[in-house]
């Protein structure tokens, strides 16, 4: 284990926040403007200066980590805005950059040459908002299919079962005349096709393009210099495959058994989460966040609550903070147990380790059920607190789990797996991601830390009350499948350490600031709330226009962005290793596809 990153105090972080402004001013005097819209943060850069600016931010100011790229459709102003959140891997607050482009023909330069981690995120912004990223190597749709009609996150785009722009819908009360929506809009009427489109004759050019985009098998020569005829084989792994943990597809070019190139294809579970959220009121989104990474609903809730609380400027009572941390860390243990169990499944240890891990997960889920009312779809956090306090007896169960059962069982799992020769043979040196690559591809969470970057949002930019606890940020240096397994075991131990402190210190008291109303007032502005989710940095970018519904709601999904590096990890590996590499990234398709 290496030393933690930002072991500086909170004051120093505050200090740094102030100096960012001065640094930027000194560097780019007069070329960029501070975003002065009410409640908004960051700087506005003209699109033609963007690449220059980003390069300088990376090379000279040390913002080496591009966390999030997204677009916002400002329909009334006839503008599209692209928002970038940069961070330093040493820790500290965000550098927020925005660039605006006319809505009629939105186009900004691509940042992929500077930050390769922008790849999928820019494709997503093109897909959902129709913003062109000039110079992007592969600007194709990523979550919807190639023949999709329009760009669904635009404010004037309507979904098939469209009723009204915003919830609550007027037809529900007081004249609630029940209808089944699918009766009112039969299937064939709710689908838009592009002009001149015929489902009978259409050939998915997306796939042809996809295959053409893969790199070729290099030409081989025999001993006497004559070219050998070799076949390039394209294999589709998935979308229906037990190793893909859901509906996920990888297109692979093979030279024999060696992988030449790999492209992940996703979106089979796409439901336009962000559009749904923009129709919803703020509180309605809480249960929807459960359904992103459905293994970690408690910490998803936390990320969203933080983003909205930042906008509202409300504080959370002590006891609620402690319970939030308790639930987030229990979630981390649950997720890592699950990830380890299923990684072993992917390696061929069919279900015995997975079931040992799931046993313990079951006990934590029982705690979640008692606390929140549901095992997986917890919907437990509220703005300014929690939905309810811990019920009688639950605290004792958690204490028993944390101090007795879980340490014993994690030790057993460690004994069972870590020194196993097959696991070592399948894991060591497989799917290597170097430190530089991990940062460049915006990898997050265990994937980033297994590559030797001690970056953990809990330490780098502390939220909630994480600055009070004594814990280490585990780091592993080889960046292979085996290290990504080990880091998860390390992190479970650190979570248990935090939980012991929570159990020791948790105070009595209120769990909610004021009364939680059914419609919250959120002042104008934008905010980026991020948490260290078990799978990596989960961010929520929320823009409020002062109305009951968010104007923009974006999820920086760690499962999605971690896949950017998937191709890089697999090149040169054998086909059987793809499954192990994917298992070690640990994705959940509910979050990847949103």
């Amino acid at each position: 284990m290496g030393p933690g990153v930002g072991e500086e105090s909170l004051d120093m972080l505050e200090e740094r926040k102030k100096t960012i402004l001065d640094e930027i001013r000194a560097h780019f005097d007069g070329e960029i403007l501070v975003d002065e819209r009410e409640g908004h943060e960051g700087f506005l850069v003209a699109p033609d200066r963007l690449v220059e600016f980003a390069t300088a931010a990376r090379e000279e100011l040390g913002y080496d980590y591009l966390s999030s790229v997204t677009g916002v459709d400002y329909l009334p102003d006839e503008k599209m805005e692209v928002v970038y959140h940069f961070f330093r891997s040493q820790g500290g607050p965000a550098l927020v950059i925005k660039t605006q482009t006319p809505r009629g023909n939105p186009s900004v330069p691509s940042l992929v040459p500077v930050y390769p981690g922008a790849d999928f995120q820019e494709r997503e912004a093109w897909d959902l908002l129709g913003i062109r990223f000039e110079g992007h190597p592969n600007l194709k749709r990523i979550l919807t299919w190639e023949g999709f009609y329009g760009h669904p996150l635009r404010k004037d785009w309507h979904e098939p079962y469209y009723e009204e722009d915003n919830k609550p819908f007027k037809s529900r009360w007081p004249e609630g005349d029940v209808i089944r929506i699918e009766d009112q809009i039969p299937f064939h009427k709710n689908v838009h096709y592009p002009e001149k489109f015929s489902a009978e004759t259409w050939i998915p050019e997306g796939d042809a393009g996809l295959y053409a985009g893969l790199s070729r098998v290099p030409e081989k020569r025999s001993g006497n210099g004559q070219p050998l005829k070799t076949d390039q084989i394209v294999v589709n792994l998935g979308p229906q495959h037990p190793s893909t943990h859901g509906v996920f597809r990888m297109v692979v070019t093979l030279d024999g058994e060696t992988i030449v190139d790999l492209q992940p294809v996703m979106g089979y579970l796409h439901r336009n989460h962000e559009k749904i959220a923009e129709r919803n009121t703020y509180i309605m989104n809480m249960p929807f966040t459960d359904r992103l990474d459905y293994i970690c609903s408690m910490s998803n809730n936390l990320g969203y609550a933080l983003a909205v609380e930042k906008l509202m400027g409300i504080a959370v009572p002590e006891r609620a903070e402690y319970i939030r941390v308790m639930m987030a860390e229990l979630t981390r243990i649950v997720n890592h147990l699950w990830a380890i169990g299923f990684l072993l499944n992917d390696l061929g240890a069919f279900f015995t380790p997975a079931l040992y891990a799931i046993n313990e997960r079951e006990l934590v889920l029982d705690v979640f059920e008692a606390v929140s009312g549901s095992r997986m779809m917890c919907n437990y956090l509220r703005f300014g607190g929690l939905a309810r306090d811990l019920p009688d007896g639950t605290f004792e169960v958690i204490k028993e789990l944390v101090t007795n059962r879980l340490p014993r069982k994690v030790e057993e799992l460690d004994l069972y797996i870590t020194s196993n020769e097959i696991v070592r043979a399948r894991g060591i040196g497989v799917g290597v991601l170097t430190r530089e690559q991990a940062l460049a591809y915006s990898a997050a969470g265990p994937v980033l830390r297994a590559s030797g970057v001690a970056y953990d949002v809990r330490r780098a930019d502390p939220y909630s009350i994480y600055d009070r606890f004594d814990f280490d940020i585990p780091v592993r240096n080889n960046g292979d499948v085996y290290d990504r397994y080990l880091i998860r075991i390390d992190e479970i131990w650190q979570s248990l350490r935090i939980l012991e402190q929570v159990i020791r210190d948790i105070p009595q008291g209120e769990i909610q600031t004021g009364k939680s109303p059914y419609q919250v007032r959120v002042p104008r502005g934008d905010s980026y709330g991020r948490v260290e989710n078990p799978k990596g940095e989960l961010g929520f970018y929320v823009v409020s226009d002062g109305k009951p519904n968010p104007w923009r709601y974006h999820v920086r999904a760690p499962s999605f962005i971690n896949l950017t590096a998937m191709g890089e990890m697999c090149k040169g590996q054998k086909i059987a290793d793809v499954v192990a590499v994917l298992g070690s990234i640990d994705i959940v398709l509910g979050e990847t596809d949103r």
Partner: protein
Amino acid sequence: MVGEGLIKGLYVTLKHFIGTYIDDIRWLGRRYYRDEAILTRQSPKARGVFTVQYPEEKLPLPEGFRYIPFLVYEEAEDGTIEDRCTSCGICAKVCPPQCIWIERSNDPETGRPIPAPTNFYIDIDICMNCGLCAEFCPFDAIKMDHDYELASYNRLESHIFDKDRLSRPVEYYRSIRPSDYAVEEAARAEKEAAKNARRRAGSA
């Protein structure tokens, strides 16, 4: 030594394997189909076999468990039924998937709304069991149920619940959520007492 890791691993599985038999012997045939056995089988003290044989065995539900909502009505001593619901519409307004439809009617003479729903529908195919309706209802009139066995053969006909299907007596609510009920009743009694005290002060 090559193979040491494998042997250590096999030791763990062997321990689990033997553990189940030891645990069976300790329970001596009382291990299955008994409430006390089910309670320990999936608890932090659990050893041996962990699984519960659903549907013969069922795990006890915690009080906070939430499934499809129901409406609470009160029955007076003379048998008249009074809905707690006043059709204020807060549940329909806070419902994230918008699966609640409430029909409110007006008094034909005064033209004012009648404070009880004429009808109340929940489409349980759409309901996401989030519990926000129960949480924000100011009259404690809509609560989350514990009955999760709702599978049916006909989705189109039987999955929109109307007021009759949704209504349950207050005793049922007390039986599934005793401590929530106690807290609410205490708050209600306090409010009532304060109101009476005000009234008395006003008349004096």
